[in-house]
């Protein structure tokens, strides 16, 4: 008999093996740190909390989608470029013909831009699956392609790389849906936070409660094994690349409505920030292991450090040093607890 080898794991151990546990601890530590260090700078307040959440929401939306893709074993380095690309697509379609744009009604512009953006994800996915090259290389290429297109096409048509004036058009509810501010405790919270929560909730349900989630874990764990038991690996991965593009589109729409404009360079470096949030959130770089809640905590940590540094008046130049340090520490810590927990 082997059942003496099947042991019951303690509750603490189960908690430790959850992918998001390390990120949750780190989040608490970072919050307590700034709550002490920056108490006089009003860190513990609704205003600061709103500032952190407003910063975290767009990054968090990207991180949730990137997490699903990374659990399935692929990277998307082009997501930041797609944010810029999608924003320019929306505004270029709205901009009147005499200014070099297409002059479409807002709803139609958003719809067409959405379809084009989904095609960028489809392009990434198909290219990765058809060439069998690492997605790291393919999407590194599309990082430049889509950023280049986001600069070149508007410049060609309108002679500009910033297109403004979203508020001049009847947005048919889009602006309200993505740019409303909610007053609470004397602070202004972006409605994007609610989108973030909704998207994260849907992603969690898909990952943990549906057969598609099982396929995502299986594909990332061992794509060949998954294929052998009938998982449509290629279709799944292409769909997940389209989901990251959809997240990029959502962020682009939030920014276009909040800031009333699009800029070719928007979303720059967001692909790395999203990957940092996902990895700090406990997702394995090689795929097959991770969660949605982890990257949510990861995005919160990222925004909290950023905001904490701003309000403590530390020179902002140090922000990258902190973020890089936290990334490395988080990965070491996550590895450590995962190994400990699975060996005991």
């Amino acid at each position: 008999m082997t059942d003496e080898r099947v042991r019951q794991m303690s509750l603490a151990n189960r908690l430790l093996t959850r992918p998001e546990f390390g990120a949750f601890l780190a989040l608490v530590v970072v919050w307590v740190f700034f709550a002490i260090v920056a108490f006089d700078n009003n860190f513990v307040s609704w205003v600061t909390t709103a500032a952190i959440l407003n910063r975290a929401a767009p990054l968090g939306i990207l991180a949730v989608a990137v997490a699903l893709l990374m659990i399935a074993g692929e990277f998307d380095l082009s997501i930041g470029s797609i944010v810029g690309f999608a924003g320019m697509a929306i505004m270029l379609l709205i901009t009147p013909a005499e200014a070099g744009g297409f002059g479409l009604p807002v709803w139609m512009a958003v719809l067409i831009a959405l379809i084009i953006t989904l095609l960028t994800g489809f392009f990434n996915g198909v290219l990765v699956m058809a060439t069998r090259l690492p997605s790291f290389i393919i999407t590194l290429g599309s990082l430049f392609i889509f950023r280049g297109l986001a600069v070149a096409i508007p410049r060609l048509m309108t002679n500009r790389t910033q297109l403004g004036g979203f508020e001049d058009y009847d947005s048919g509810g889009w602006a309200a849906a993505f740019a409303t501010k909610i007053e609470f405790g004397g602070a202004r919270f972006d409605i994007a936070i609610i989108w973030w929560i909704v998207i994260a909730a849907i992603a969690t349900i898909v990952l943990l409660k549906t057969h598609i989630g099982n396929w995502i874990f299986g594909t990332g764990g061992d794509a060949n094994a998954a294929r052998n038991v009938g998982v449509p690996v290629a279709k799944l991965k292409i769909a997940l690349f389209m989901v990251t593009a959809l997240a990029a589109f959502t962020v682009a729409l939030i920014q276009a409505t909040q800031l009333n404009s699009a800029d070719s360079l928007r979303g720059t470096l967001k692909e790395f920030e999203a990957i940092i949030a996902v990895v700090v959130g406990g997702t394995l770089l090689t795929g097959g292991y991770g969660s949605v809640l982890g990257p949510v905590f990861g995005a919160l940590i990222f925004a909290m450090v950023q905001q904490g540094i701003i309000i403590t008046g530390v020179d902002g130049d140090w922000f990258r040093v902190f973020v890089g340090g936290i990334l490395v520490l988080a990965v070491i810590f996550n590895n450590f607890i995962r190994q400990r927990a699975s060996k005991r």
Partner: protein
Amino acid sequence: MSDKILEIQGVSKFFGSVIALQNVSMFVRPGEVTCLLGDNGAGKSTLIKTLAGVHKPSEGKYFFEGKETLFESPREALNAGIATVYQDLAMIPLMSIWRNFFLGSEPLKAGPIFDIENAKRITREEMAKMGIDIRDPDQPVGTLSGGERQSVAIARAVYFGAKVLILDEPTAALGVKQAGVVLRYIVEARNRGIGVIFITHNPHHAYPVGDHFVILKRGQILGDYAKEEVPIDHLIQMMAGGADLEQLQHELAEATGRGS
């Protein structure tokens, strides 16, 4: 004969100028264990892959449930009820037992929602039927021992309606005790009416569970013996290739004699 669920007749497989299998015939009946014995390089892997639908035979006939058949892919063979459990399994170590068990064939309730309670219950029950008590189906497969992983893979194949179970060296990498677990499983699967093809190079593992023994050597069938006709010593000797073994014993005896 109609009671043979799977049979091959005169199968050869060539890879360019290499003759991997030549004129190989074998069969398995439901509720029986056919042991396929052979040393390294005897052609076992090629034969398994031919049975599993990975390779198509260059010559010869393949019968499944009495009908001549040619499988285009392993998936097709699997759908027909021929499940192959390879040595390196198709288990994903980071995933829990129940997630592995149902990967690719998830039971659903209400749209895309995975029926998790049922998945866990069935996993526990199926393992229990095979004599293993999985108290925690949430355990990652990576924390299971080699024998237990083989057992999960076999239980999965049985649950999803395998009529023929091809086991590729399931005991090769295991210790004595773990191998015992897998052997019990093989017997359990046989008792449930499944035709089992058990590939091994260890006659000590084959003999206790096998109903008949097919010996493969250098791509050819050396013999097919019912258990009654062949004592284990004879089996070992034939496997290693009688004359060679006698020669070896002779040489070893000489070497030992000189040493003392």
